[in-house]
């Protein structure tokens, strides 16, 4: 069991090592300035030297991502169910939801701060705005794709609209909704960066996004890379924990073939 796990972790580890090696060689050979592209060894050193600082900044970002994604999942899912059950809502909400994805965050950021100040709330709002959409789209598609023959069966058994939803449509849509959640979770990390960049904070640990921006301005590029690496690892960890949740939530959908996401 442990062996099989180790064997499965091998290919991505090897690939990562190869990429890091190529990166190191490229920096050495081309003599690229550390301000433009720090070599992996200096990023690793920055990571080591600033472990406390980075960990301190990971905490608020992780909280933003966690709360933001939770709110986005709820909003996306509730909207999807509403859109599915009500054609009127579908016509009203869908175009607006699509349009909302084109609004540059910079445009609304001042308003969010004006409303909610420098705390976590405006950041959550940004993450929710970015992340509810994939959940909405995949869940609506999943609900629409439920098998009409199953719905027929439920009709002959006198199921109410709600029962048809609960016994057939909802479980059928769950795997698609979870795929949406995975996409949402992955972009929630970059969403947190955007949110932190666009809205100020007063806390001592402003989050990894602010840290990256501050380091880049201060020409502390290796530390910016180290912070970006923490985001990178955090996104991967989030993604795979959701894959585990999927097995628990929708075991019937477990793919017989191994998928990339199989943890």
């Amino acid at each position, binding site marked *: 069991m442990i062996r099989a796990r180790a064997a499965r972790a091998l290919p991505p580890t090897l690939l990562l090592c190869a990429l890091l090696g190529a990166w190191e060689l490229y920096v050495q050979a081309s003599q690229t300035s550390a301000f433009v592209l720090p070599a992996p060894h200096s990023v690793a050193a920055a990571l080591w030297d600033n472990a406390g600082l980075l960990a301190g900044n990971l905490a608020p970002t992780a909280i933003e991502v966690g709360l933001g994604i939770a709110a986005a999942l709820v909003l996306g899912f509730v909207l999807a169910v509403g859109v599915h059950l009500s054609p009127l809502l579908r016509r009203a909400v869908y175009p607006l939801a699509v349009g909302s994805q084109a609004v540059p965050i910079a445009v609304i950021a001042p308003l969010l701060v004006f409303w909610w100040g420098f705390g976590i709330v405006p950041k959550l709002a940004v993450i929710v705005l970015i992340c509810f959409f994939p959940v909405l789209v995949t869940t609506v598609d999943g609900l629409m794709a439920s*098998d009409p*023959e*199953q719905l*027929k*069966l*439920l*009709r*002959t*058994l*006198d*199921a*109410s609209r709600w*029962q048809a939803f609960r*016994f*057939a449509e909802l*479980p*059928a849509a*769950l795997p698609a909704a979870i795929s949406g959640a995975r996409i949402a979770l992955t972009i929630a990390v970059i969403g947190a960066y955007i949110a932190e960049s666009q809205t100020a904070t007063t806390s001592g640990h402003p989050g990894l996004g602010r840290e990256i921006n501050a380091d880049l301005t201060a020409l502390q590029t290796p530390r910016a890379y180290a912070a970006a690496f923490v985001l990178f690892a955090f996104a991967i960890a989030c993604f795979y924990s959701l894959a585990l949740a999927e097995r628990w939530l*929708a075991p*019937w959908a477990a793919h017989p073939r191994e998928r990339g996401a199989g943890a």
Partner: protein
Amino acid sequence: MATELQSRAQPSPLPAAAAGGIVVENVSRAYRGSRGEAVPALADVSVRAARGELVAVVGPSGCGKTTLLELVCRLQSPDSGWIASAPAALMAQRDMLLPWFDAVENAALALRIAGHPRSRARERASALFGELGLEGFQRARPSELSGGMRQRVAFLRTLLSGKEVLCLDEPFGALDAITRGEMQQWLARALQREPRTVLLVTHDVEEAALLADRLVVLSGRPGRVTAELEADIPRPRSATDAAVLALRQRALRSLALSARAEGALA
């Protein structure tokens, strides 16, 4: 109690005639093909099943048998003609088990829908698993069952709907000969204990002769009734009874005759 009829023309005295049974009168039904052309599936079909009667419907593939059952179960409406039936449960040709529920939960679906608490519904369904040779597979997911087991679970789900009329679409089609024989016996006994009105679609003429009170033979598409054969044979029946064999021969002859008539038309 007969539910309201689906009619386009004048009202008819059918519901009274249907009480507990099925009346299908002069029903035609056509589908729309992908290019908008009409694809007639049933043409002027009349079938009756009195309360407690088992009527078998045989006919070549594509002659509208599934369509007939869906009409009786009100999943479709006829283009013309009348249909009246007591509340009917359908066992579809594909088993339609829900992959997210285990076998018992699937079998108990109608009970859940009727509002029984989950544990009681499961208990009731589970108790019948043994009789159907499914003991020990209560918690298996549909994907872990064989085709024949899935059919039996679907069959149980249909029975547990408690409806007066059962519409069975090739219920034992995926079973091996021995299990099919057992299931036929089991159905015959179950219906003797607790009579229901049954419309049984089958491609197996022997099955029809074994189980039915009456056989309706349909022609090729669009389906028309080409023969109605009374099966006045005492029960329990066996496939080797002379009367069953004779009925089987007659049904085969009617099927062949209608096939020949079509050949002549074509």
